[in-house]
């Protein structure tokens, strides 16, 4: 109990004093995850939509695979990305291992199936509703996808936010490909892991509270900016 309290106090102290290290790793956490969410959304949202609209032979199989990949173990993704980016690997020449870019890459792989699956689910319902109308109006396939993405944007926001939630708290993959290097690839989750290992529980807890606070603030901010949950609006 004492440790929890000490952690809270420590968190308060770090925030109030604008601790330079805290701000740096928090910003890096945000930078990595927000970039990964943006890239994964750019791939996953249209993909989910396309899968809802298009009928093709292996559609069921693709959707089932995508749903299964939602549970992709981050450590394994980290390992694979590590091997691909390491000096001996196929992309070794770019020297990306242990950089934020590597961390973003790993997170994009983890987040895309999740975002695509949730988007697919939401768009499928909207498509069932719009189907006859859009067919009747003689729209092209791309117009249908664009319409569904736009009219389903509130539901798609949820998909992206779910991706953010998974990304910001993720530690396995970014630890492996980022390496938790101070001033270079250290983020909140890897720092918590490190401080816990060192027995620095109050600092680890403080970082943990900051992480939770950050997730809440980002979600609230996005909801406010996009005016969801306001009556009479979609």
């Amino acid at each position: 109990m004492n440790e929890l309290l000490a952690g809270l106090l420590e968190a308060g102290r770090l925030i109030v004093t604008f601790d330079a290290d805290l701000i740096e790793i928090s910003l890096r956490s945000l930078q990595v995850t927000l970039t990964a969410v943006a890239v994964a959304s750019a791939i996953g949202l249209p993909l989910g939509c396309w899968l809802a609209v298009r009928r093709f032979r292996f559609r069921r199989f693709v959707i089932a695979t995508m749903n299964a990949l939602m549970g992709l173990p981050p450590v394994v993704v980290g390992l694979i990305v590590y091997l691909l980016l390491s000096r001996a690997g196929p992309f070794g020449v770019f020297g990306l291992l242990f950089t934020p870019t590597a961390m973003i890459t790993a997170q994009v792989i983890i987040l895309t199936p999740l975002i695509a699956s949730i988007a697919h689910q939401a768009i499928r319902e909207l498509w069932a509703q719009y189907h006859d109308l859009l067919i009747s109006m003689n729209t092209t396939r791309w117009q249908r996808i664009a319409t569904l993405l736009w009219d389903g944007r509130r539901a798609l926001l949820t998909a992206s936010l779910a991706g953010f939630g998974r990304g910001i708290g993720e530690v396995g993959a970014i630890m492996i490909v980022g390496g938790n290097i101070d001033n270079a690839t250290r983020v909140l989750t890897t720092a918590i892991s490190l401080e816990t290992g060192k027995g620095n529980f109050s600092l680890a807890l403080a970082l943990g509270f900051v992480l939770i606070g950050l997730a809440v603030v980002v979600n609230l901010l996005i909801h406010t900016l996009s005016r969801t949950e306001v009556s009479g609006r979609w």
Partner: protein
Amino acid sequence: MVTSILPLSVKDAVVRRRGKTLLGPVTTTVSDTGLSIVMGPNGAGKTTLLRLLHGMERVSGGGSLKWQIPEEDARALQAFVFQAPIMMRRTALDNVAYPLMTHGVSKKEARVRAAEWLERVGLADSAQKQATVLSGGERQKLALARALIRKPEILFLDEPCANLDGRATREFETLLMQAFKDGTRVVMSTHDIGQARRLAEDVWFIHHGHILEQTPAEEFFASPTTSEARAFLKGDIVE
């Protein structure tokens, strides 16, 4: 109009779904003017017939639908109003502007024209409301404006007044008659005999997926030739 898409000739068209024949074979001609009312009991195939003519049902077997111009071009000159109006998650104004926007009209121009149409159907005050909060009657009027905004040559309506009360039905019928007077070919299904009497120029009576009668309204209501139609008009239950 020089390049009218009508008349439409339908030959031996059959609609099957999962091995079950829903409609046909149907052989008929949709003339280039008029207001036709499709009547028949529930499950007779009214909706399927309208969807078939509109190109939303695949023709099974060897049947065919033949417009006066190629089918792809003809599709753009038709519109459909559904029994339960489909409201897009947009403002009323953008719902009406949508068909224009997807067919090459600029957003600004589309909204100006949509506003005129909302005015015409009496929904000007609701322009900025989300379409999903409109009442049943307002929705159906919105759907009518959305269907008419691209000036279709032929308009199909599938029991548009089935869920409306008397006043909303009257308003809807007034708007529909205006569109008809402006030169739109109308094909509408209903099982409200009173509505059929008010509107019809000719009646298509269908039963078990077949068109049993296709006669001018006066003739149909005065002396239907088939026993099914007679029973239907008398108010008997036709099975």
